[in-house]
């Protein structure tokens, strides 16, 4: 009985890692699309979205099955409930990446300063996602806490981009539409950072049983 349960838990772990890998893949492709403006890459992104959704369904079913059939307690229960919460965040990351991909073709001529900032911001948020998945894989609370802290960096980038865009609009009101699109992209990256933070928080919960201090 227990060995079957362990087997299913291992499967859950594996599926979670695969879903994490999918999220990393989709946002790294978004970053590539943002810098290289490659139509083929955008196509790849739209095919990854449904894959992430499918993975979410699979993991959800697996979690519910585990909860109903095995009635886990303590650490196992924490792991499964944390997984249920984490996949929601991962799925949102996928959605946000898709949203960015939709906007990317419309922001062709970006001002250099914003472009650099956006690039750095994207890299910071990708790093957060990668590290949050790493934290989950290694059950690494230290790394998870670092991810939670790093959210400030991404938030800071958002503020910087916002200011840069505002001054851009003041100087050149014609580029208004592009600026708003860029702001949306920045906001999406900021949300991706938030979701990565959530994942990290659930990692901490699944290991220690404490969710969000204070």
């Amino acid at each position, binding site marked *: 009985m227990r060995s079957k349960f362990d087997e299913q838990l*291992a499967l859950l*772990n*594996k599926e979670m*890692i*695969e879903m*994490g*890998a*999918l999220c*990393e*893949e989709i946002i790294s492709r978004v970053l590539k699309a943002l810098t290289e403006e490659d139509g083929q890459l955008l196509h790849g992104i739209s095919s*990854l979205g449904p894959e992430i959704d499918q993975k979410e369904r699979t993991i959800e079913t697996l979690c519910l099955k585990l909860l109903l059939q095995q009635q886990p307690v303590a650490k196992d229960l924490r792991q499964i409930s944390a997984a249920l919460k984490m996949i929601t965040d991962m799925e949102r990351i996928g959605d946000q990446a898709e949203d960015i991909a939709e906007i990317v073709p419309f922001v062709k001529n970006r001002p250099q300063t914003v472009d650099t900032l956006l690039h750095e911001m994207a890299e910071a948020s990708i790093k957060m996602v990668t590290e949050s*998945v790493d934290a989950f*894989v*290694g059950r690494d609370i230290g790394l998870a806490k670092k991810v939670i802290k790093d959210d400030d960096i991404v938030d800071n980038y958002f503020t910087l981009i916002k200011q840069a865009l505002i001054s851009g609009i003041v100087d050149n009101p014609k580029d208004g539409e592009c600026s708003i699109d860029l702001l949306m992209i920045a906001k999406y990256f900021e949300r991706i950072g938030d979701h990565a933070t959530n994942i990290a928080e659930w990692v901490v919960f699944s290991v220690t049983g404490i969710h969000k201090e204070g």
Partner: protein
Amino acid sequence: MTRKIFNSIMIVAAVSLLSGIVIIMGFLYSYFERVRENELKDELGLCAAAVEDGGIRYLEKVQSDRYRITWIEADGTVLYDTVTGKENSKNHLEREEVQSALEKGEGRSKRYSDTLLEKTIYYAKRMEDGTVLRISIGSATVGLLVFGMLQPILIVFVIALIMSGILAGRLSRRIVKPLNNLDLENPLNNDIYEEVSPLLNRINTQNSKIKAQLKELQRREAEFSKITSCMNEGLVLMDKNGIVLSMNSAAEKIFLTDQGSVGRDFLTVYRDHEMSLCMKHAAESGHSEMQKSIFGREYEFVVTLIKSAGEVLGSVLLIFDVTEKVLAERNRREFTANVSHELKTPLQGIIGSAELIEGGMVKQEDIPRFLGHIRKEASRLVVLVNDIIRLSQLDEKKELTKERVDLLEIAEEAAESLGVLAEENSVEMQISGDTAVISGVRSLLYDVIYNLCENAIKYNIDGGKTELKITCDQEKAVLLVSDTGIGIPHEHIGRVFERFYRVDKSHSKETGGTGLGLSIVKHAVLYHHGTIDVQSEIGKGTIIRIEFPV
């Protein structure tokens, strides 16, 4: 085993003791009964003597709990009984012992008395006056006697049992001790019971078999890890669930991990969407390949399923570093594209001019100019093709005949043929230095010096200077070409030796070159195991230093 032996000894001891006691008790009982009967007879004799002497008065005086004495008339009436007195006694004539006494003089019998419910032994004797005196005793007294013996016998029994217990313990331990102390590593060195030796022999043969197999196994394991650790390719073995069974050092380096990854899911070692797709594909079709760059290097991943008798045992992941291959391929593609472009440009010029002449669009007096143009373009083509041939020769790494050549001599030769060009560009050219004789290919070394000087002249300013210095010592010959020219921008220095690479992207026809000159220089120098060093500053000039081993 000790316990079993102990138990057996104890059971045997207990059974033999018990049966001994029972037999002894049986003998004792009958012995005591006989003794009692004899005693009874003697006592009856004494009693009879007393009764004959004292008559009934003696009997009345007798006080005994155990004995019962009855005096019976010859007709059976009881004269006196020590227990019941004179009255209430039945006629005793029918009694067996009385009958026997009356007939033979004495008699005895054993029976359950009517009056007292116990087995009683009777003894009767006819006296001289014809009366019969009878004495009796309850057999319980014999039983009591024996019973009295029981207690000491039991004590003896218990003591004997305890003794035999201690002995049995010692004995069983002594029997088992050699078995416990068996040296199973060297079974044949044991001096022990004959009965065990077949077993020991068997153990001996199996021991040596196991040792041999273990050794073989260890040897293979060491061989395997030695081979895999020396491999440049990464090798990962996984079981059917994707758990890493073994990973060689090359793979560890690629995935930035250590031996700690053994026993973990491969996904936790390297998490990548394409990788998991590749694994899945391999699980379905048995084989799968993919290419991916990790930390700036290109790797090719090959996953193969291991099957035995239709059952999946696991999978092997082989990782090849194909960075060089990919780079070479890209270079080749670029080279082909460049070559076609470079070849096409002069041809277009030739075709264009020829078409104009053919269509009669060119005035008669302009025809020589157009023909000149065609000739110039065609000779440029020849130069280009020559350069390409030279490069491809160098690429082939064909062994060319080496001879002893003097660099200074070649330099002077090259300067002579470049004199016109230098004059055209109004660049002053100087050659200085000692004779430096090295072993090399004359034509290649000529190309090196010619190309370097040509560049120094071409990419120079009006009234500039070009200096060629040759020095030589015991170990190396140094060729130093310096100019006062336009210089090479810092970011381009690393790339000027690439084929068709131009600092000036417009591929200007003005300077004429093919873009292959420096590439030929590099290859030729490498062919002679030399080194090139470029120092340049924009606007000030370039210094190229080449060292050849002597």
